[in-house]
């Protein structure tokens, strides 16, 4: 089996390139926006086929459900963290 699906997320847009972070949080790639599907923006989750070690960007598909799920999870976590905020000015 030399083909697998990988998840890459658009960390940010720099000019005409999307800066992508792999889900192993190790690899990063700059990919021209015109190679990626229409609608790619900051935070877009992409499912990309990797065949024989090569990422097939033409195969990239947006996963909107996973993007929204991750945002909801992060918002829940942030809400919990904000409960730790003592408020006001802080003296270190």
């Amino acid at each position, binding site marked *: 089996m030399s083909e697998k699906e990988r998840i890459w*997320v658009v*960390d940010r847009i720099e*000019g005409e390139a999307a800066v992508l*972070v792999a889900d192993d949080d190790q690899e*990063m790639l700059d990919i021209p926006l015109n190679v990626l599907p229409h609608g790619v923006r*900051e935070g877009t*989750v992409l499912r990309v086929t990797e065949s024989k070690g090569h990422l097939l960007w033409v195969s990239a598909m947006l996963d909107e459900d996973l993007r929204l799920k991750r945002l909801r999870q*992060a918002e829940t976590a942030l809400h919990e963290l904000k409960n730790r905020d003592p408020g006001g000015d802080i003296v270190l």
Partner: protein
Amino acid sequence: MRLSRFFSCAVFLVVSLDCGFTAPVTAPDPVGKSVRITFLDVGQADAILIRSPEGQTALVDAGRSSPVPALKKLGVEQIDLLVATHPHADHIGGMVDVINAIPIRFYMDNGQPHTTATYQNLISTLQQRTDITYLAAEPRTITLGSAEIEVLLLPPVNSTNLNNRSVGLVLRYGSFLVFLSGDSEVQELSFWVQHGLVPDVTVLKAPHHGSHNGFTWEFLQAAQPEVVVISVGTNSYGHPRPEALQAYSSVAEVVLRTDDDGQVTIVGYKDGRYEVVLGQETIMTGQALGSRGQRSTARAEAVVTSYVYE
């Protein structure tokens, strides 16, 4: 001005008072009465260490990869305040390493979620680390000994560009001021200018690595920095852009960039004087005289002389 590895500078500022006479500036404070801002050389990313005169530390952003070795080399044993200006990987990539390696007291971010594994790992780590106190980036003052960090009001949520919700910080130590704002772009910089939140500062970290959208003339006219530091590494985005370099050079006495100059430290004194230190060694390269208070009634002239590095 861009400094090369083999040339350094001593910058002498004389203050030409309105009455036309040139006055020498006051004697330095005692050794140790200074705040130190170190721009770590973390490539195309940001990581800025603040050390108060009394030894409190703050780290603003943590690079793409771990800045822990550099922090250890600087003798950092605790970080009192860790700030993520915004959740892009070139600013938070090294956060988890920092949290796992160095005791952290407070963590601050802009409260805006992201979908990358980098961000998800960070937020998960913070959830588990109940010993770290979370702080929302809202208008408030963080006191680090005799220095203060003012957290600026953020613009309304912008769903299309996380850069424009970068946490804005103004470090004040007497008349020495530093402006740090991650990757803020025109929209956020203009918001701060419109709300009167941009003071006349001594040091400016070039927003967004010297991008074309990381400055406005109105912002630079308000900030009037003497020193601009660009945290930048090898990149394919054209950072820093020529128009940004030109703009910074036109308002500042010195423009430094971590790709050419390596780690940059600015030592600030309460009366507004500063020293530029390059590299890991404490290399004294310059001194600027003239406080921010004086500047409004006096004209400062920079005379660059005797550049001697290492």
